[in-house]
């Protein structure tokens, strides 16, 4: 009974929201520039999780962040790039930042493997593309996956401009070396990606990649808290985002 009632309320809220969409649409685009919109949003919401990746500190070339992430989330390890599942991985500078200047880039930057993961965009194209709401944005800014609801249409993969999403082309279980019982594995036919460790955040822990890094490359925190460590880092250093021209407003920042 209560369940039905809740569903009904949710649906009626949807109808009312629908009416609001038109006016919202106009005001949204009337605002014009991203900054104005962002500042307005800041006052309303309390949390937007974000990350700064300080590539200057990433020198040892270890892959502890990747290992920790993949262990925590039961990410399978397939031997071929076709079936590959990636949550956090390393790639070249020019692949991570194809729209940044590629001429006369310092050799150490050009040759360094850059860490990359889901950007947890403020305006995620994947969420917009998903026909069922299987991928959605939480109010803490995390773009989350609901594996139970995903129909496997892979529209989110076509929509993501960062290649951050992976599809389970086959049963992942046989390809997981050590299964962590606290986190589910996936089955074939659903899409997955980095979730900023929202299950760990709920326990007050840092994301496992952040915790695992011996060089303190990764700073994680609330972008809406002006006094947070991450905001301090953002204030003190010039940072870049991936493909900012697309207006997705990534929550992952890089110091190159």
């Amino acid at each position, binding site marked *: 009974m209560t369940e039905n009632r809740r569903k009904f309320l949710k649906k009626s809220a949807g109808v009312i929201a629908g009416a609001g969409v038109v006016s919202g649409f106009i005001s949204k685009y009337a605002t014009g520039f991203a900054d104005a919109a962002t500042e307005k949003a800041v006052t309303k919401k309390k949390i937007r999780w974000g990350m700064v990746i300080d590539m200057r500190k990433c020198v040892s070339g270890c892959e502890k962040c990747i290992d920790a992430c993949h262990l925590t989330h039961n990410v399978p390890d397939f031997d071929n790039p076709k*079936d590959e599942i990636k949550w956090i991985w390393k790639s070249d500078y020019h692949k991570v930042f194809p729209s940044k200047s590629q001429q006369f880039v310092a050799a150490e930057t050009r040759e360094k493997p850059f860490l990359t993961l889901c950007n947890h965009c403020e305006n995620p194209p994947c969420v917009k593309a998903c*026909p069922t*709401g299987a991928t959605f944005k939480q109010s803490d800014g995390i773009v989350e996956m609901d594996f139970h609801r995903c129909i*496997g249409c892979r*529209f989110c993969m076509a929509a993501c401009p960062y290649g951050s999403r992976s599809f389970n082309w*086959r049963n992942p279980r046989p390809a997981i070396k050590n299964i962590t019982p606290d986190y589910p594995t996936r089955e074939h036919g659903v899409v997955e990606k980095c979730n900023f460790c929202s299950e760990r955040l709920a326990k007050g822990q840092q994301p496992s990649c952040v915790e695992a890094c011996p060089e303190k490359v990764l700073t994680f925190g609330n972008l809406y808290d002006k006094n947070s460590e991450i905001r301090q880092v953002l204030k003190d250093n010039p940072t870049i985002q991936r493909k900012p021209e697309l207006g997705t407003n990534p929550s992952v920042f890089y110091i190159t």
Partner: protein
Amino acid sequence: MIEKALKGNKGYWGWVAFLVAVILLGLYSYSKQLSYGLGVTGMGRDVSWGLYVAQFTFLVGVAASAVMVVLPYYLHDYKEFGKIVVIGEFLAVSAATICLLFILADMGHPDRVLNVLFYPHPKSMVFWDVQVMNGYLLLNIISGWTVLEAERKGVSPPKWIKPIIYLSVVWAISIHTVTAFLYSGTPGRHLWLTAILAPRFLASAFAVGPALLILISFILRKFANFDVGEKAISKLSLIATYAGLANFFFIGVEFFTAFYSNIPSHMHSLQYLFVGLDGKSQLVPWMWFSMIAGLVSVLVLLYQQRRPSNKLLIAACIGIFVSLWIDKGIGLIIGGFVPSPMEEVVEYFPTFIEISVTLGIWAIGLLILTALLKVTVAVKQAA
């Protein structure tokens, strides 16, 4: 009325048996796909859509093109289309049906397909696509069937069918526009991120559909002793000619913008398709063949407007069909994924299982079309 599809000669039943065999092969392959996952296909992390979505896109065009016979006949009272209009609608029915089947075949979790309706998300173009495709299928079944039924009874069609037919005209434009929006709204895929995609889709659809109808007309003339009329065929070829010209004009416009602006990301996909990128050039011969065959066919069509020749017409229609199938059914979808958002050039090869599922679905469409046309011809010949 459907019982008329159950009477036929040996040739008819041979054709049906052949289609059923292909369908069974497709079903067998699909069962493999269901148990193992979509990993049995050539799709992968970088090229995450392939043959299935490509067929879907192409066939939405075929479905939408029914409007090219419905509109002249019902709105402009072009009587010469009297015999072909129902054929056009039934072609739309079979194309729309297999469009939906291709989507189903492409899904990782087909058992959850109703989630699209249980948790509707109108911001997603897929939501709208599901609505318009199903709606269009229904509109065409109703209008085609009702009009044919009336013809069988020798009465004029009921009045309520008119608004439905008019609605199907607008609806036809909407299905291909929404299908184009599936692609042209994605921020990271430059081949798709273009305002001309919807017009280009419509133009190519209106070339392929009439070309296919012409071919069907000749097949019916040869095998079913049924003639849709010379005038209808020549009008259809005129439509296909100019729609084809518009399509190639739009493609040219695409090239200009990409290469004159010289913006690398805008050029990459076109480079991959037409000259190759990073040493990978698997689709280059296909794309050039598509362009040349398409242009030559359109010119032949134009030429035979003055000097009608059935042989040339048939060759040109096949040319247009193959050309635009490659262009839209392969180049456009695969090209959208190459290079990947991380500038990787990964090539895609469909697997045997994928190809046989695809053929199976096409066979389902042909079976539906065969049955519907059998009924149509039987009714029209009796009348």
